[in-house]
């Protein structure tokens, strides 16, 4: 790779790369992010390449290996361009057929995606309900670029936002553009990014400034940042370069959790390539602007995502939040002014600059512009990463994108915001998803976790689960965070054990609000959300546990009994499965469960083919 010495040289390269592309050439796109690889994408890639070689099709059909496209449930999958045909849940044999079909310009009807709602097969990705209701500004770019090839990124318009900024040559313009786009931080708090940059730009202490990309992503089950890092690492680099130019910062840090090896690998490659091309480092494209980025691997504690803890961790200290003020913008890493933004925030920056702030602001609602990626999981038909315009209602995400409930059980709530988010009941599904509405409803946006819950989810158990997580993840400095969470967990445990009382419930509520009030960082301040929101919307479930010693969802083990009803055919399967030997009965006769021996593991329910085991 030859180092580019001027903007003109870059533009020449980009023009060449763009004209080299043949949009009509058939291309097999294989998403191979961590999720794709886990479900077997690597085998598909191997087979696809071998088939093309064997059949001498390498000039006719191309293969593009990309990051995650979001429909993780359908992986390993293939998207065929330019036709847009989508094949879900593939294996090696099917891949061979697809190569043939692409060669012959055919569609394999039997491999197409089946829409569960209508039972019909859908040919094109863009017609699949999961994709149709999304606005995929960020994720769609994952489909286009091969993350380990900088030329692929540049050929798709990459780094042209940076060029635009360099050509304007007024940092002020960039800040104004970001401000008028209305972009708010995607890491959770929703702080306006333009305002943050303006504050950093105004800092004059002559010792240099830092920009940080927060890629800690500690929420269990959330992986939208991972998908962007893996699928489009250069978009983060470009975003940070633009940020650096706008705020006169020269040092960048990407703080990424060590549990993301593929993301780290792609970032390392991307950083190396952009440095080699002269897009990163000293005197970028001969413009005199210098900016370099280093990668710091985090130890993977949830609390290290909090900005002051993250800075401590970057400095090599224990990842513990510290008192603000002074805010990082004044005194950050090594005492230098520092602005921290989330991965998704950075990924939006080049989009805003390239398409214009006005275009960006057209998506979403007033005060909540652009799109947001959520990781949609739980009791829902379509799981995966979904990118929707801000302000879309929960209802739309759950029914249109998510496809509604997968089984008979009715959906009753969604939990947003990760471990310290809250649960929003189905009656409030008309709520628009934006920072302010979610907060008002007792939850938070967080970094975009969205867990769908149905009648088989016990809300006491949900609150208990999150307290258990936070009990270990609180840094432990604030007494009320460390002890308060432990005590909330203790009370919830009592409730789910049938030992709850009304007095203890009041105590729980009182404690939850004091924990919220008296803790120092965002973790403690939001830790009560799971408790307070479930108490607010699902108090009747708590009361049922306390008063009737009954868990309506059939989850809390101490409060449920397993029994066998008339449906039993005496197949003996359950008796064979029970590890405790709690089920007895003769062949072809109704079996019985000894409640004393039963440990309520539910193994029998899973094996019974006749719906004969009841949980009450």
């Amino acid at each position, binding site marked *: 790779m030859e180092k580019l010495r001027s903007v003109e040289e870059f533009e020449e390269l980009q023009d060449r790369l763009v004209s080299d592309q043949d949009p009509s050439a058939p291309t097999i796109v294989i998403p191979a992010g961590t999720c794709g690889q886990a479900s077997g994408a690597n085998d598909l890639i191997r087979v696809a390449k071998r088939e093309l070689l064997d059949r001498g099709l390498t000039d006719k059909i191309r293969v593009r290996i990309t990051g995650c496209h979001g429909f993780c449930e359908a992986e390993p999958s293939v998207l065929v361009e330019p036709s847009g045909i989508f094949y879900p849940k593939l294996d090696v044999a099917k891949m061979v057929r697809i190569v043939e079909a692409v060669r012959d310009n055919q569609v394999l009807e039997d491999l197409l995606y089946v829409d569960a709602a209508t039972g019909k097969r859908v040919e094109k990705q863009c017609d699949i309900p999961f994709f149709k209701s999304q606005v995929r500004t960020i994720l769609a770019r994952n489909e286009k670029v091969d993350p380990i090839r900088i030329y692929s990124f540049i050929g798709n318009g990459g780094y042209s936002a940076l060029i635009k900024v360099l050509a304007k040559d007024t940092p002020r313009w960039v800040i104004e553009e970001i401000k008028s786009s209305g972009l708010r931080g995607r890491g959770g708090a929703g702080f306006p990014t333009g305002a943050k940059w303006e504050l950093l730009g105004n800092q004059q202490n002559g010792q240099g400034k830092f920009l940080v990309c927060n890629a800690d992503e500690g929420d269990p089950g959330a992986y939208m940042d991972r998908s962007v890092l893996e699928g489009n690492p250069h978009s983060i680099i470009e975003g940070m370069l633009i940020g650096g130019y706008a705020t006169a910062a020269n040092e960048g840090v990407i703080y990424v959790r060590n549990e993301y090896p593929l993301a780290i690998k792609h970032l390392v490659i991307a950083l190396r390539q952009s440095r080699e091309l002269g897009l990163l480092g000293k005197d970028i494209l001969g413009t005199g602007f210098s900016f370099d980025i280093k990668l710091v691997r985090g130890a993977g*504690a949830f*609390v290290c995502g909090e900005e002051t803890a993250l800075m401590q961790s970057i400095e090599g200290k*224990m990842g513990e939040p510290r*008192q603000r*003020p*002074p805010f990082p913008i004044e005194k950050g890493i090594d005492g230098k002014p520092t602005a921290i933004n989330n991965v998704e925030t950075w990924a939006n920056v080049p989009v805003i600059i390239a398409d214009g702030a006005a275009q960006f602001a057209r998506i979403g609602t007033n005060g909540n512009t652009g799109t947001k990626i959520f990781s949609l999981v739980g009791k829902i038909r379509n799981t995966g990463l979904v990118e929707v315009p801000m302000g879309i209602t929960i209802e739309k995400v759950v029914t249109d994108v998510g496809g509604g409930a997968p089984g008979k059980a009715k959906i009753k709530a969604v939990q947003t915001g990760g471990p310290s988010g809250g649960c929003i009941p189905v009656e409030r599904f008309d709520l628009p998803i934006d920072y302010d509405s979610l907060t008002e409803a007792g939850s938070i946006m967080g970094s975009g976790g969205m867990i769908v819950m149905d009648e088989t989810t016990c809300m006491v158990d949900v609150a208990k689960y999150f307290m258990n997580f*936070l*009990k*270990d*993840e*609180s*840094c*432990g*400095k*604030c*007494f*009320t965070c*460390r*002890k*308060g969470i*432990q*005590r909330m967990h*203790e009370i919830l445990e009592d409730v789910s054990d049938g030992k709850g009382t009304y*007095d*203890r419930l009041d*105590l729980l509520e*009182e*404690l939850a609000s*004091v924990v919220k*009030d*008296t*803790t*120092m960082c965002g973790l403690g301040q939001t830790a009560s959300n799971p408790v307070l929101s479930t108490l607010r919307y699902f108090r009747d479930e708590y009361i049922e546990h306390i008063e009737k010693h009954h868990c309506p969802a059939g989850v809390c083990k101490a409060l449920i009994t397993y029994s066998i009803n008339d449906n039993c055919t005496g197949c003996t399967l359950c008796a064979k499965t029970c590890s405790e030997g709690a089920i007895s009965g003769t062949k072809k006769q109704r079996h019985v469960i000894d409640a004393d021996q039963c440990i309520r593991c539910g193994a029998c329910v899973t094996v019974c083919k006749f719906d004969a085991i009841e949980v009450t």
Partner: protein
Amino acid sequence: MITLTINGLEVPVEKGTTLLEAARFLGFPIPTLCHMDGLSPYGACRLCVVEIGEGPKAKLVSSCTYPAQEGLIVRTASSRVLRARKMVLELLLASCPQSKTIQDLASAHNVRQQRFRQEHEDCILCGLCVRMCKEQMVAKAIGFRGRGQTRSIGTPFDIRSEECRLCGGCMYVCPACQLRCTYTEPEKAVCGGCANVSPPCVEKEQFDDMMCYMTPCVACEIQE
């Protein structure tokens, strides 16, 4: 100079003054536990919370760590503060009932009930000992490790630290252990165990239930 308002009184203070210092200067009492003059503020116990700001933006912050800011409005005894303070004390009492310091604070603030399951912890992780050791004794023999419920105080690798000079400073400042060793010598409020050449706790069996946060104890070197 910075001017702020505490409980309705305007007070000019120097830059870098904490809310706690400013309030105490005016004579407003604020209980503290993890704060000690001469040691850097840490903000662990949350007992010193005060309310700042107004309207929906009002919030509680720990006064020992929060720097005074121009125009800040501070309330040291609002109902929100009092409610939080009582809960903090109730939690402390539930975890560490043997501490004289905590008992005194609780009774001074009229905490008459303790509704949580009783525990007997030997450390509330206030960090006084760590700061004492580092900042006054310049030894850095002990520190925090772990997070969440496994957070604890100890020496590196849990062996007696070369850095420790048995000064007993850590024990002197500990709010949780003041009653620990008075049990053999009740007239001594502080045992100075670390400094004691023949500490009272050598016969391990006899004092098995005596709580000591450093295992193995830097003083008596009884290995667990």
